């Protein structure tokens, strides 16, 4: 079942007096439960593609469909609600809110959006995610008291807390050592299998690309490879 589809998507950024074409007519589909790597060198358009899928940026032309619905014409409020309900984000620099502790950072998305969870239910769910990412001992610690790997685990838990169908991870291992990076990817893969959450991550690390079930390779804003290695989680 297709959860995301890009149809002839282009993105042009003005850069002074010239325009830079970051994405040049990209089209592909992503299945529900996919564990997909968007690979390519720096400047190939990986992050731009993730931004467009995550509805935090809009295409210059073309269509981005999430669960069969085009994101074009949505208001800022509607896009924000769509992000909250459907998409979880894992950032390269972790992007934890510095003044909130581990528990509060993970809880944050639950406090946004229209649908609110009861406090006891929320606590139980956040705590279970803290256990899932192995941070029980760090529950009340602030981000600056955590290592890079621990911060990224918090970010993963936060990305999953609103039970999104899609998790976008922009170079999630770029700021981690290789061992920690592998652990993070393994954790993401485990969650992908258990919860059937679609994971889309950008990377230029060949080892990590090898773990993906589906690889889309970009060069200069164009898709040069679209290879499925394994069936999506839930379809096996």
């Amino acid at each position, binding site marked *: 079942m297709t959860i995301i589809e890009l149809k002839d998507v282009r993105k042009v950024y003005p850069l002074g007096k010239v325009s830079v074409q970051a994405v040049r007519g990209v089209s592909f589909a992503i299945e529900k439960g996919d564990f997909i790597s968007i690979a390519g060198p720096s400047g190939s358009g990986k*992050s731009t593609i*993730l*931004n467009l899928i*995550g509805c*935090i*940026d809009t295409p210059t032309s073309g269509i981005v469909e999430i669960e069969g619905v085009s994101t074009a014409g949505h208001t*800022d*409020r509607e896009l*924000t*609600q769509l*992000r*909250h*309900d459907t998409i979880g*984000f894992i*950032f*390269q*620099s972790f*992007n934890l*809110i*510095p*003044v*909130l502790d581990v528990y*509060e950072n993970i*809880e*944050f*998305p639950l*406090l*946004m*959006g229209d649908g609110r969870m009861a406090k006891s239910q929320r606590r139980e769910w956040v705590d279970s995610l803290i256990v899932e990412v192995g941070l029980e001992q760090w529950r009340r610690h602030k981000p600056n008291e955590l290592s890079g790997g621990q911060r990224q685990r918090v970010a993963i838990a*936060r990305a999953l807390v*609103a039970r999104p169908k899609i998790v976008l991870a*922009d170079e999630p291992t770029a700021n981690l050592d290789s061992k920690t990076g592998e652990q993070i990817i393994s954790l993401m893969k485990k969650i992908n299998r258990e919860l059937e959450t679609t994971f889309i991550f950008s990377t230029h690390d060949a080892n990590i690309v090898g773990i993906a079930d589906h690889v889309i390779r970009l060069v200069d804003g164009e898709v040069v490879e679209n290879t499925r290695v394994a069936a999506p989680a839930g379809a096996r």
Partner: protein
Amino acid sequence: MPVLIRIAFRNLREHMSKSIIIGSLIALGVIIIVLGNSLIDTAERGVHSMFIDNYTGDVFISGVSKTPGVSVSLFGVTSPGDNETTPLIPEYDAIASHLREDPRVGAVAGQLTGMGLVTLEGNDNRTMSFLFGVDPSIYPDLFRDTFLVEGRYLKTGEEGIVVSRGWLKNAEKALKTPVKVGDKLIVNGFGRGGFKIREVSIVGVVDFNAETEGMDMIAWSNADTVRILSGVDVSAEDVVLSREQTALLDAKSEEDIFGASESTMDAASARSAAPSSPSPVQGAAPAASKAGGSWHFLLVRLKDSRQAEAFTAETNAWLTGKGIAARAGGWKAAAGPFAQSIEVVRIVFYVAVLILAIVAVIIIMNTLVISVIERTGEIGTMRALGAQKPFVWLMFLVETLTITVVFGVIGIALAMAAVGVINLIRIPAANFFTQILFGGKVLRLAVSPMSFVSTLLMVAGVGLVSHLYPVIVALKVPPVRAMQSE
């Protein structure tokens, strides 16, 4: 605690140095505003006791200046060049009886104002004085803050002068000789009738509850003496002067006066003379009352001073309705140039506060904008995670209001401490102007609760205005900034 308040509070703590910079500025502004307001309140109270309780009353009624837009005060017409004589109040009796019928009125009295050069016989020195011509049977009822320290008040129909203790001291200094009750003063007046001389005895010395030297420039006399010195008719029905006496009153040069064997005259001799022809001075004031003589002003003391504004408006409406060319005004109109100096101080203070507020807004705004720029990644992340724009706006609003209110309260506490210290030091007023400002000879500040409330509201207003631009900047931060933060 809601997450946005938690984030706002913790951000303030996290960025402590910035919070303290903004907060210190706010606290300083609050101190200046509270102390300034306190000074104005003090001046206001001082002015009340100095002017309303001592010589203006609550409402003052005068004739209208011939020059449009020029005001008339108890000190005359403030026209450019000061060459217009003070207009007489028309239909005095009708206005006075209308005022006395009003149950809000405590007392009503007429007054004339003149100026005179005062000396003692055989003394070459002179001192300038304002002369208030009053009816001694009514006038003291209006100003009960004045009390006798020597001699007695004027009696009805008596010629004489009552001076203040300060006036006496000033006169002694200027005349270089002791001046006491019973001394006969020579007063040279210059009014529309020309140059006049009167001899009047000091019958009493008064003092005031208000500590001020402003009153030391004024002496109180019987009305007829001031009328003669100012060239106003003495009493339309009662006084009919001989040709010689009229010529003497109308004297325009020293030769006219001193050329004759009789150098001075008094009102009694003026009254005793009874030639049939009317005085030319009478003709100069045709609109003046015949029953009570001519008056420049009517002073009204209300039972409740707070009704002065409404009473003034109603009186003006009545005067207009009756077609009487007179105008009612409050103490500020009566005090004229003295009140204007207070108004100037007030305007200067408010302009200073406005400039301070603008500077505060700019500094707070600038600091908040820097804070927003530093936090674009955080804002972008919140937006990416599902925070709507109102969440971001409220977060900055809570931060700004918290900082302004907390430091506003600190500023008020410091201002209270400063008021206490200033009152302990007992700063003396250096001159008459600062006496008006201080409301007495020593600065004694008092702070009203309303001053706190208005200052806090103003500070909150500054906070609200300051946060607008940074919030606009924050709301423009796109969620994609989350991806770009390092």
